[in-house]
């Protein structure tokens, strides 16, 4: 895995569309590794991906349950995992996920999934942190907050990289930029 392709995703809707674009590439046996800070947009991405796959059940954060399986008609189920609370690959293995028969999306899985599968698509989502981008509250960027009740929209930088022959060709990635 080297470098990877970078894109800028403007807002949550665009993140869902990007998830849908990735979904179009997926089939049973595929693993997507999502990396990003709390609040980067990992669940938003997966919501778009799940909707495009036509899965049953709302795709919400799996933090509480660790892993949630979303069945779908006539296709491999989506297994959405949050590995944040897992200490090591053995604990992830304990979840008994059917990697071969499912499409598996793992949040916070870097450093764990590599021990269980040989090929994966890595998606790193970066949001501005700390003092970057928007100014500290109060002061600020005129367009940052029109209404304080709205969550501020800040663009995300996404890096897509593949490991293994399955993901050798990432030619489809720029299509994601609308």
């Amino acid at each position, binding site marked *: 895995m080297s470098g990877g392709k970078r894109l800028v995703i403007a807002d949550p809707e665009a993140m869902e569309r990007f998830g849908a674009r990735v979904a179009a590439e997926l089939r049973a046996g595929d693993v997507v590794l999502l990396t990003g800070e709390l609040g980067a947009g990992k669940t938003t991405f997966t919501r778009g991906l799940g909707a495009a796959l036509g899965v049953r059940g709302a795709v919400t954060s799996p933090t509480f*349950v660790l892993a949630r399986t979303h069945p779908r008609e006539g296709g491999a189920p989506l297994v959405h995992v949050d590995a944040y609370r897992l200490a090591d690959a053995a604990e992830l293995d304990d979840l008994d996920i059917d990697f071969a028969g499912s499409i598996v999306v793992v949040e916070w899985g870097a450093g764990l999934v590599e021990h269980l599968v040989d090929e994966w698509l890595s998606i790193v989502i970066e949001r501005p*942190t700390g003092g970057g981008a928007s100014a500290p*509250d109060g002061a600020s960027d005129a367009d940052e907050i029109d209404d*304080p009740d709205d969550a*501020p929209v800040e663009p995300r930088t996404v890096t897509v990289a593949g490991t293994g022959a399955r993901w050798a060709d990432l030619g489809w990635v720029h299509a994601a930029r609308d």
Partner: protein
Amino acid sequence: MSAQPLVLGIETSCDETGVGIVRGTELLANVIASSMDEHARFGGVVPEIAARAHLEALEATLLAAVERAGIALTDLDAVAVTSGPGLSGALMVGVGAAKALALALGKPLYAVNHLVGHVGADILHAPGADDRGELELPTIALLVSGGHTSLLLVRSLTDDVELLGETIDDAAGEAFDKVARLLGLPYPGGPQIDRAAVDGDPTAVRFPRGLTLPKDLVAHRYDFSFSGLKTAVARHVERLRDAGQPVPVADVAASFREAVADVLTAKAIAACVDLGVPRLLLGGGVVANARVRTLAAERAAAAGVSLRIPPLSLCTDNGAMIAAIAAQRIMAGHGPSDLGVGADSTLPVTVVQA
């Protein structure tokens, strides 16, 4: 079967092993064993640990409930169990135990919905105690816990429950856990934030109110979103740290809690007003949150909505509420569940009995 059926209910959907016994709407026993301490070091419930803990605690919990109720298992009219929604492995332990008990005793099995159970908790009263007044229907119900954030329209406890909205990302309880983590507070986050917020100023930071703007109300009028709020808290804390300033934990906790309480209660009251249902019931562990209770009471009073909050021991997960729903189903003439019934982690709220 008697007019007021004697029902034992088993609840194992998450980390509480609950066994309750009711006679109709009379609460005879409500025994709960929690494995919460075992999950603390993982920063949240671990399904496999929960399932194992249920297995270890179930028999003792069941025997304690039977003793407290002063009944014999053979007196029971039916066995009830939560079939979902919840954690699969955890649910399976309860469902397996209930089936075995029903078969061994030759009693009918009622596999019921956990969320409807939370609403059913409200109809229970202690033997001889003053009734809290009948639960009037229809009612709006706001159920909030670690794993759920749901707004329901309940027309009948036995066969007519509609899901108005739910969270589209994090459950409210989960947002409390994550913000606690950001503030360096331990798990579970709810009580920790509540405690830290006591001395804080809830107006110190105006955090986002998810899905409350006019543009969101079209598609998500009764849905909730706490992800943007969580991110805003993270950004706020990071900016202060980057600037070398101390993080005013009490103010951030109070402001965060205010944002959650504001959205939960505003949407619940809006549903009451929009749908012409002047009754609101709160359920789930978040009811323990002082600010959510106070704000709900203020807003309900202002909107002419009557507010019901069951006692906390019946708001958190328990078996009595499951027995209560089964008793209602029996009294309404519904037959038992098939013994082939299984755990269903995503059982929709519209299915009161599986």
